[in-house]
């Protein structure tokens, strides 16, 4: 008797799976338009995770406040659960005790996700060049936008979010094999 294959062979994934329908179309009008639409959707409603650490968090609250209203730009609300957020604004100094927590929150966020390092402490440890502060949050998570300032004005945070939106819209959906 021949061998009975009782379990299905696992399907190859990724590039080994061969060209997907979308891939097979290559880079033509349909996929670029689809790219643009999806990226427009992603950039227009970036919901940050609540990750206020220190003083910059107060200015982040100010950005959500009535005078500088961040929800005009799509960030309607801050999600407390990282699983429902796509942007992590690291606002404040990251101490070494907090560093693993930061990484865990970043890992719990689903793709696609972006990180803004708000303020001097998140970008480069600011004025705290000592034992207790992680010297820049990009040692722990990849950062998309850095905002200087101590703390940066709410307008600076809005500028960063707008720049991030432009960055998102520049991302193609279908990656070329390279």
């Amino acid at each position, binding site marked *: 008797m021949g061998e009975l294959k009782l379990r299905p062979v696992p399907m190859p994934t990724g590039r080994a799976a061969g060209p997907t329908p979308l891939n097979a179309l290559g880079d033509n009008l349909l996929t670029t338009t689809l790219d643009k639409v999806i990226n427009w959707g992603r950039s227009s409603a970036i919901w940050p995770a609540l990750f206020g*650490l220190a*003083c910059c968090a107060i*200015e982040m609250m100010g950005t959500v406040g009535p005078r500088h209203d961040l929800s005009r730009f799509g960030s309607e609300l801050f999600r407390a659960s990282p699983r429902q957020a796509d942007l992590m604004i690291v606002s404040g100094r990251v101490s070494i005790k907090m560093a693993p927590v930061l990484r865990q929150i970043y890992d719990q966020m689903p793709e696609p996700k972006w990180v803004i390092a708000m303020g001097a402490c998140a970008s480069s440890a600011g004025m705290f060049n000592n034992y207790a502060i992680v010297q820049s949050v990009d040692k722990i998570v990849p950062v998309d936008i850095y905002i200087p300032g101590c703390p940066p004005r709410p307008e600076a945070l809005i500028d960063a979010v707008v720049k991030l939106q432009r960055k998102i819209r520049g991302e193609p959906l279908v990656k070329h094999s390279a």
Partner: protein
Amino acid sequence: MAETRIKQEPFGPGPAQEPLGPEHEPPTEWMELNMGPQHPSTHGVLRVRLKLDGEVVRDADADIGYLHTGFEKSFEDKTYTQGITFSDRMDYLAPPINNVGFVMSVEKLMEIDVPPRAQAIRVMMMELARIASHELWLGTAGLDLGVYSGFFYAWRDRELVLDLNELYSGVRMMTSFTRVGGVAWDLPDGWLEQLQRFINVMPARIDDFESMLTQNPIWRQRLEGVGALSRQDAIETGVTGPMLRGSGVDYDVRKAFPYCGYEQYDFNVPLGSNGDCYDRYRVRVQEMRESLKILQQALDTLPSGPWLTNNRKVALPPRSELSKSMESVIHHFRLVSEGFKGPVGDVYAFVESPRGELGFYLVSDGTNKPYRMKVRPPSFCNLQPLKKLVQGVLLADVIAIMGSMDFILGDVDR
């Protein structure tokens, strides 16, 4: 479910709870819940490990240090004037008050007199910071309990204070406006008029807030009777500020040990009676009104004159003098390059921050840098009784209690 007798243990090695007899032992298991460092209601990066028996909290352990920045070590490395910029970032909701406390300890050590105009400016900036801090507290504590619109009321008012800060010092929050012996700059044109407009507008806005909350049955039900700290307990556990005054102890640094000329202003210190969250809320709102009174008096009686001491050994000479006097240039050079040296000794100076008594214990060894600058943070001391306050309350009340404590993690962890 089988009746399992699981050993109920509080967090060790802390003080153990009274052992419950067999007839009291509940047939349930205590659950350990982690209110993690990332949480919307912990007002910063505080971790509280709770032991829950159903919905009732049996024990709590506050795990702090997630924002430890090493301020005290940093102070040892910086001259006295450089340290002022660091001091802002500790209690980051009321930075002007940190600034004043820091320089007061240096001024006490070196016995430097501050001119009256500088004292009045300091008082005005401090009271503005107090109002801004209480507004933010009200906004965020309300947010925890469901008052979503209160957050926007609070920020509307806080932005006015930040505008005044910015007009004076150029920075919205971290003003660093004091220098040893006075303040860094004189008030700019138009600042006093803007302050007067602020004082005119604020009482109605505080009334707005109060009308929304004070007699609100939901607010009262959430806060009345919750987290009551008796007078004796409040003194024993070392709390200060509205937590202490909510329990009825009449202690406000501005009245008990006046500084910066507070003795010339007429204001009351609101006291609570029950020591619960509702009393603390009433105390803070009333404190905002009293701050407006102080501001109005300071504005009306603002003396003219110098805003920085003449003592060229500690304070920079005015720039106009630099072109005329060689001695001024030398003083300027000395002060900017190496700072000034203090006598050997140790002092403790303290101010009333919106959270309580903020103290600076300065040990000097005769050099231009502090040898040891210990900060007595009000939030650190106010957070200590958390374990005691939350035993036996519902989980939702823990949020209300933490909100009413008004701690700032920058202050707790330094």
